[in-house]
């Protein structure tokens, strides 16, 4: 190898290592910045911050419980709707639809994921929330009103329920596209074998397809959950900026991300910014844990890879 080659190799290697280290540095910087920003609030409020529901900046009282509650409830609601739907879409696009339909519908479902959250939120405020307030919420209240979750509907439709619906729209394409990719990895021989033994299509799905991909589908769900928990914009637009914890889904609430989005530029007291950093820290921990969890339970499937496309 000539000297120029050695130098060239070294330069390219150096650049690549530098780029990789930069990515690592960015992550470390994010963690450091969030933790150090939160320290005044952590030392003042400590762990009880997580269970106090009152957020009153002018009194210097800060608690994350209402935001944690809204985040978890809206995300779980989205997941409860999007997971079965997404798996069904994945099954349809991997096993049932004829190839021409797959080639059209598959990309369309993926494009649903490309719609920016600010447009989802705006569409939600103008179209989805009024629809929910006029039709969905009264219906659910009439039928399931005895469950405290389905209290009397409000007129604006801005509620944890609407935020959950908006999140459903954003999580559904993720779970659908990922589970379709997973179902396509099931070996044809396994499915044919089950069919040759007389299994119906549903029995092939339940006996072969779902068991072989269960860990991957679970990981896809966790990734969807992570996306829903961290979503700031559409949730802020739809959740109605409420305070406190209420049993009814149809009342306005708040979430970790939307609390940050709403209050950051208008923070009043000295401890508010650190408290918002504390919320960001909770969100950061949730984000990191869901990523690691998805990676761990995915096992041999690399679901995050498909998400990057």
């Amino acid at each position, binding site marked *: 190898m000539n000297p120029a*080659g050695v130098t060239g190799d070294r330069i390219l290697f150096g650049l*690549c290592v530098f780029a990789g280290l930069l990515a690592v540095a960015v992550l470390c910087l*994010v963690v450091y910045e969030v933790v150090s920003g939160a320290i005044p609030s952590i030392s003042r409020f400590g762990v009880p911050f997580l269970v106090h529901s009152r957020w009153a900046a002018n009194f210097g009282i800060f608690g994350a419980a209402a935001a944690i509650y809204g985040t978890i409830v809206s995300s779980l609601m989205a997941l409860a709707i999007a997971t079965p*739907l997404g798996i069904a879409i994945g099954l349809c696009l991997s096993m049932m639809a004829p190839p021409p339909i797959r080639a059209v519908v598959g990309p369309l479902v993926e494009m649903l994921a490309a*719609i920016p959250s600010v447009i989802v939120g705006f569409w939600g405020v103008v179209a989805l929330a009024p629809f929910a307030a006029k039709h969905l919420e009264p219906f659910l209240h009439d039928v399931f009103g005895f469950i405290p979750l389905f209290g009397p509907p409000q007129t604006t439709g801005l509620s944890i329920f609407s935020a959950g619906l908006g999140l459903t729209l954003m999580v559904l394409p993720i779970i659908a596209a990922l589970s379709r990719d997973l179902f396509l990895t099931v070996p044809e021989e396994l499915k044919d074998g089950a069919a040759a033994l007389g299994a119906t299509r*549903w029995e092939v799905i339940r006996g072969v397809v779902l068991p072989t991909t269960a860990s991957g589908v679970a990981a896809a769900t966790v990734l969807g959950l992570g996306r829903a928990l961290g979503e700031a914009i559409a949730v802020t637009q739809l959740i109605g900026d409420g305070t406190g914890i209420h049993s009814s889904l149809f009342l306005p609430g708040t979430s970790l991300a939307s609390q940050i*989005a709403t209050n950051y530029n208008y923070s009043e007291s000295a401890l508010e910014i650190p408290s918002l950093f504390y919320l960001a820290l909770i969100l950061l921990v949730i*984000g990191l844990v869901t990523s*690691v969890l998805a990676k761990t339970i995915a096992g041999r499937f690399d679901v995050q890879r498909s998400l990057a496309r």
Partner: protein
Amino acid sequence: MTALSDAIERDPSLPDPAAPLSPSGNLRRRGVVSRVVEVGAWVAALFAVALLVLVVYTVVRNGLAALSLNFLFTNPVGLGGGGIFNALLGSAVIVAFAALIAVPVGVLTGIYLTEFAGPRSGAARALKLVLDLLQGLPTIIVGVVVYGLLVATTHVETGFAASIALAIVMLPLIARSSQEVLLVVPGSLREAADALGVDRWRTVLGVILPVAIGGIATGAILSIARAAGETAPLLFVDSLYNPSQTQLDLFGHGVPNIPIYIWTTYDLPTANAITNVWGAALVLLTFILLANVAARVLLARTRAKMRG
């Protein structure tokens, strides 16, 4: 002959030849369950497509009412009046600068993962984990962090800070997609180059990258489409600016952009504001969906080329 068939017909242990061929009992139930599941899956798929059509249709129908050359080429006036010229230009500049940072770093990271680090080496696995964690980061945290780093110190929101925030969002996407494409470049190309005694850096730049360039471009386009619509990272770093002025100076000024325009205009109490937000949403969505289609076409062509 007649006697034989009579004998068969009369034997109760044999199935009735005149019985209908449709399944009964357990077999019938299993068939019905399977049908129900299939219909359910089809309904779910149609529902997803209907959702996309509904959202896109609403945006297009309402957005077309606002769309005109005047809308595209004048700056906002007053409360939600005028057009979105400065926000369009600003978004283009911010995203372009973010891509300028994120694409080289992301592609180099991808090259490191495939060409230098062994796929099972500790360094590669750690780096992949870091990229996955970055990708899973709620984007509003990126906004908070960049605010703390670049805005809190000077108290000035800048387009530069916005570009940095978007670059952080784009980096893991580009790195992972480049790595994927580089992984499927046929190993025989590397071996052939090695056999000819070509230096590693010449192999990478002259052989591997040209083959993979289509796939890398696909990843870059997708990440640009993603960044163009990101709002959360910009909330604290590029939302304070003069909304009626064109501002392309990334350093020292907030730069108007489309996501923040939508975010700050949609709940203004004027009818014009809503119409204009639909218009802005239509422009943004058109760009993003076209970019997605382009990326898909490019990827299909690259795959075909690699297969030979």
